[in-house]
């Protein structure tokens, strides 16, 4: 009984999710279409990138990047400068997870030490 209910609700979530994604795919405009950029020319001369009609956050960030951050790697500029506070938060998550796993696993360390002492004695 519980399993059939769960299967029905999973199918409902899947159906609604497909409707949502379909709407986002067909009715929303794409903000950045990179199919006609020449990557080699762009690498040789970064300031030749044509950003005359910027719209949407992604376009704005690409537009503002070189003159405001002077970083060649735009991804690093977004990760460490535009949204640097979130990267700070992510590194805190890593630290909390590691401290937490030390706390959880310290019992098995203590048990192994006791086991070794008992075996040696």
């Amino acid at each position: 009984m519980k399993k059939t209910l769960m299967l029905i609700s999973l199918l409902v979530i899947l159906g609604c999710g497909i409707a949502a994604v379909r709407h986002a795919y067909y009715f929303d405009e794409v903000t950045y279409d990179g199919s006609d950029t020449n990557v080699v020319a762009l690498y040789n001369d970064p300031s030749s990138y044509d950003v005359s009609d910027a719209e949407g956050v992604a376009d704005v960030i690409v537009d503002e990047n070189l003159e405001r951050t002077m970083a060649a790697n735009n991804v690093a500029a977004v990760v460490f400068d535009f949204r640097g506070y979130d990267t700070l938060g992510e590194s805190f998550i890593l630290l909390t997870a590691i401290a937490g796993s030390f706390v959880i696993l310290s019992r098995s360390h203590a048990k192994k030490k006791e086991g070794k002492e008992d075996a040696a004695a």
Partner: protein
Amino acid sequence: MKFKDGIKEKNIIVKCGADKFLPFAITFGLYVILFGTVSPGGGFQGGVIVASAAIMIYLGYGFHIVSRALRSETLRVGEALGASLYVFLGLLGIIGGANFCRNIFFDNGEVGDLISAGTITYMSYAVGFKVLTGVGFLLLLLLGILAPDPEPAKPAATETKEQIEVKETLNETLHTEQKEKEAVS
């Protein structure tokens, strides 16, 4: 299986492979961290590559060598130091008069140099150091659960077959001599 100082040694091919790949992994990882602003990569990615050194030492040498080589206390303190360094770099913005996490000296080099984009490179180094020590500590912790107990040191040489036969015949003659003596007395 060979024993040296009572610790089981690993296979010679794996040990040689670990020896050869370890400096390459560390150097490549440090390269990815250092050149984070000019080529793909950055702090997180490079830090994890360097932290794979712990696994390489473990594969080649076993847990007891790796727990002697990398001390967990140092790694733990290093992780907290890296995180504090990142927060301090963020606070530079407030000290310089602007808001938090502000890139106050972003024009300290040309586009494409190694030291170019102000606090971005330094934050990348701080995150790389933090991930390096943190993931290394985590790997040590998890490998410590898998660590087998050291075998007790066995006597050096094993006996060959002829020596065993000689010992057995000697024992037999001793037994028969003892029985004859008892039968006599």
